[in-house]
């Protein structure tokens, strides 16, 4: 069990800042670089039906790094002694910065999409709220209010009094009023290391060794993804 903790540490550890011109992600390292980590979280977020814990520390370190890179680029571009060769490398770094920004943007927007979709569920569940950053929480409650208001103005306020609520008890044959994430959605999961066995929905045990890829319900492998023992692909 001790290796859980190790893995968790790796998640939050910052990589040391790299020299200005070294491209963000091209240096091969044995340990997962912040960018690889970001890509893993990005992929997980894109594939998971539920909203996953926010990676605030990772994100802010990457944003800091991007800012430092851009500043270095600005300085070097302004410096007349910069050689042609260096200008070429500057262009590469700039492009790289744009590409990393793209991933960050896509990651943030994926979360935003889920927040909008499950806004009411999020505002009613304190457990989920711990997965969000402060600004995401604010956004979720703003969004839930906004939608409620729209429904109320467009529909509910014109209905007879007893029908005006948004949280009716519905009979079993109707879908619930609140959209909740479907944790039984199938996902492809790739084991990053030998995983402890998981229990499949039909009760059988399933063991995944390192490198193994399975298709299963998200709820089955949720904990493996959270611990970084597996990733969604």
């Amino acid at each position: 069990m001790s290796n859980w903790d190790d893995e968790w540490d790796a998640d939050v550890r910052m990589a040391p800042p790299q020299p200005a011109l070294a491209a963000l992600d091209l240096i091969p390292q044995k340990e997962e670089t912040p960018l690889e980590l970001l890509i893993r979280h990005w992929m997980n977020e894109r594939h998971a039906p539920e909203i996953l814990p926010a990676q605030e520390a990772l994100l802010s370190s990457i944003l800091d790094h991007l800012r430092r890179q851009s500043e270095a680029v600005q300085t070097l571009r302004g410096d007349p002694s910069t050689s042609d060769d260096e200008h070429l490398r500057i262009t590469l770094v700039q492009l790289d910065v744009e590409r990393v920004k793209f991933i960050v943007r896509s990651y943030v927007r994926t979360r935003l999409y889920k927040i909008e979709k499950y806004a009411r569920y999020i505002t009613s569940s304190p457990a989920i709220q711990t997965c969000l950053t402060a600004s995401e929480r604010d956004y979720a409650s703003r969004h839930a209010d906004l939608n409620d208001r729209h429904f109320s103005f467009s529909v509910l306020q014109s209905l007879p009094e007893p029908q005006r609520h948004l949280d009716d008890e519905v009979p079993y044959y109707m879908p619930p009023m609140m959209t909740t994430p479907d944790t039984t959605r199938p996902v492809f999961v790739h084991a990053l290391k030998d995983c402890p066995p998981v229990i499949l929905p039909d009760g059988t045990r399933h063991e995944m060794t390192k490198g193994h890829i399975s298709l299963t319900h998200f709820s089955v492998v949720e904990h493996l993804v959270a611990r970084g023992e597996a990733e969604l692909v």
Partner: protein
Amino acid sequence: MSTDVHQYGELGTQLLQESRRSTQTDTLLKYNDALVRSIIREQRDLEKSLVSQIAKTPENEAPPPAVIIFQTAILRNKRCLLAYHSHRLDRLRDMYWAVGGALPHILSDPDTRSKLSPHEVDYLRSYHSSAMDFRGEFSSELDIMASITVPPKELHVSVKVVKDCGVIQTELGTIDFKKGQRFVVRRADIEHLIVQGYLEEVSGS
């Protein structure tokens, strides 16, 4: 007249069919105010019938089965109404993000504008300010409203000006984009103008 006689829930089905058509053709249809109103009228009638049925039932007796019919019809209609509005909101939000959060661009288009209900215009305005607040939480380095469909392959892009868009700040200083001109500019500086249809990407140059 057959048009005067209909089953409970028939109008609700019509409303849902509009949503479905909108999805299938990937277009925003005009807000069907008349249909929404008639369903709301039906809801009021249903509520009256329900109340009178319950009032007619003597105390200590189970209400007649008609009550269940009314209740089910009421719930169903209500869900249809909410689903219709919710589906439209989804579309509006998609439109909003597709133009990179340029709200005036949506609202100034007379064709789109005519399809929205006044409440929807209000919704978009509030949504825009909420999204802008969220965007403001990030550093000026990263614009989260920018496109996320295609990862950038090149730093610069060759563009043709389709519509005058005035003076724009770019990496190379300010450029006054005039219709018909062509430029090679940094993608990040002008991407929003491509999205909004002011500039057009010229490939293979």
